[in-house]
């Protein structure tokens, strides 16, 4: 019920005990099953399409995203400006596709670092070693997750940004590199770090739960008895069996991450102009909420262009997540 929430995947999914590595036929089966769900399949294609728009933004843009044209401000959609222009005469279509690129980058980096790298690894460790390691990790997680998350994100972004930007500048100045700040990389780092508390704990708990069960499985005990090293057990024997719930969890979480970036940028704490982001566009056009009604009435395209993308992304990822959940965890409901 809050901004950053998605449908949570079922807490405890029963891990399927199967031999490693996963048979190729198994995945082919799953894919076939997935394709049979028409809506989910269409959603997946739609998501892929939106993401491709973002990835190829430099190619498919019709204008420069920061190019103002004061002779063509506040235009409706036309052949020249497909979605119209904003108050400064910038092309909305171009800004939307670049905004999607921002979303893509944020989503990928934040998942790669927070959820997958940190969450999965820590989850594996906590579940496998149990005892005090597990206790410490769980307690730390509890502390972090005890904070209201969107607020924590905003707080982190607000306090961290000046430090990180300063650091990046000094790096640029001392190494002669350029564009670290202006290209937005620093913004991505800031947002990535700010989103960490949101992303790692859920994934970690999920993986840990699975591992707690799996580590008692016969084949793992067998591997242990044979003297297999712990990392090998973790990553070769246990991890492949946790992949399904991870996939489901990621697909549910992506929408939330994307939305968090939008909210951050809406408040001016995320991506910095002139680089567009969907959140920046919404924040700019609505004057941070106050003008939202007026804009919706007088120039709806300026508000709707970024919003529909966000809407589609969240909707589609939820449909996909649902279908994946059914397909990958047929027993869990």
């Amino acid at each position: 019920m809050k901004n950053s929430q998605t449908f949570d995947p079922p807490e405890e999914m029963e891990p399927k005990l199967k031999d490693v590595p996963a048979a190729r036929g198994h995945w082919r089966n799953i894919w076939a099953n997935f394709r049979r769900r028409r809506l989910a399949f269409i959603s997946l294609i739609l998501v892929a399409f939106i993401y491709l728009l973002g990835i190829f933004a430099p190619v498919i843009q019709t204008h420069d995203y920061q190019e103002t044209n004061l002779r063509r401000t506040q235009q409706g959609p036309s052949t020249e400006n497909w979605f119209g222009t904003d108050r400064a005469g910038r092309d909305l279509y171009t800004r939307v596709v670049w905004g999607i690129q921002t979303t893509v980058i944020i989503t990928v980096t934040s998942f790669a670092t927070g959820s997958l790298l940190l969450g999965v690894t820590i989850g594996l460790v906590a579940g496998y070693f149990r005892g005090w390691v597990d206790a410490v990790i769980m307690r730390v997680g509890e502390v972090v997750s005890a904070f209201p998350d969107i607020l924590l994100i905003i707080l982190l972004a607000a306090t961290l940004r000046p430090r990180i930007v300063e650091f990046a500048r000094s790096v640029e100045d001392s190494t002669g590199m350029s564009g670290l700040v202006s290209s937005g990389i620093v913004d991505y780092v800031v947002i990535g770090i700010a989103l960490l508390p949101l992303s790692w704990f859920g994934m970690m708990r999920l993986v840990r739960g699975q591992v707690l069960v799996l580590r008692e499985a016969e084949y793992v005990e067998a591997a242990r008895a044979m003297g297999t090293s712990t990392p090998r057990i973790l990553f070769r024997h246990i991890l492949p069996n946790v992949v399904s719930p991870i996939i489901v969890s990621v697909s549910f979480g992506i929408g939330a991450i994307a939305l968090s970036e939008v909210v951050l940028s809406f408040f001016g704490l995320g991506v910095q102009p002139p680089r567009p982001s969907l959140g920046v566009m919404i924040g700019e056009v609505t004057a941070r909420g106050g003008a939202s009604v007026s804009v919706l009435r007088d120039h709806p395209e300026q508000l709707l262009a970024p919003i529909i993308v966000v809407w589609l992304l969240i909707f589609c990822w939820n449909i996909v997540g649902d279908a994946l959940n059914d397909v990958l965890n047929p027993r869990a409901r």
Partner: protein
Amino acid sequence: MLAYILRRLLWTPVLLSLAAFFVFIMGMCAPGDPAELRLGNRATPERIERERERLGLDDPIPVRYVRYVNGVLKGDFGDSYHYQGKPVLEIIAPRLWVSMQLNIAALIVAVLVGLPLGFYAAKRQGTGRDPAIVISMLILYAMPVFFTAPFLILFFAVKLHWVPAAGWGGFFSLQIILPALTIGIPGAAIFVRFMRASTLDVIGQEYVRTAHAKGMSNFVVNYRHVARNALLPVLTIMGFTLAGMFGGSLIVELIYGIPGAGRLSLDAIFQRDFPVLTAFVLLGAAMLVFANLIIDIAYTIVDPRIRLQ
């Protein structure tokens, strides 16, 4: 069992003091000197120095931390920077109360819409209505607040003049309707989902089939057996949802001009009103921790099969 509860209870203050420490450190790292912030842009260095002394900013960090924790234990979170020396608790308490009312109203909307729809969808499984309900609720769920809120205002307030456009008038006022809908409808989508799943589970249970076989009327079976049993697991989710709503209505409060906790904390971040912010985050954390604790304990009491270790 008792040992577990005891352990959890003992753990809670540790958790909270860790949270307090974290918040305190964040405050330290924040840019801007509190004394300068309080005095504004024309203050002379001497006056800033005096103010720093008054606020105790020159003391070593451990001293300040101890002083902070000491104050918190007595319910004194310090004075606000922005609201000229008002005690933080005095500022936060009414805001929290507003947010709570708003979220309860939203929860009521979510329950009233979500549970019947979820139940209905489950009963109609296999027909076109089931997916239609699920998907349309999902569409509403995914709708960004940035659109929902202005749209509702435009339609119901500006065009139809049915309700006020913005502002706060308390729980029993017309003003609460739009924001409650804005938060409640996506919430309803969550309830539809859980209620539907839960109902499907119950329908498949033997005692329901037995009831049908015994020739009980559909109505009785539906309401005495299915709905009631399906509700149980959903209720636990409700607890989580309430606890999780804390701070979640940020943008809704912003657009509708509701003096809630979300907006206050947002203002506090931008105004660097750290006493307010830290108190707020701490209280939020405390509420979540206690909610979790109560839910955990309630579980063991309701369902003796769950043994906590």
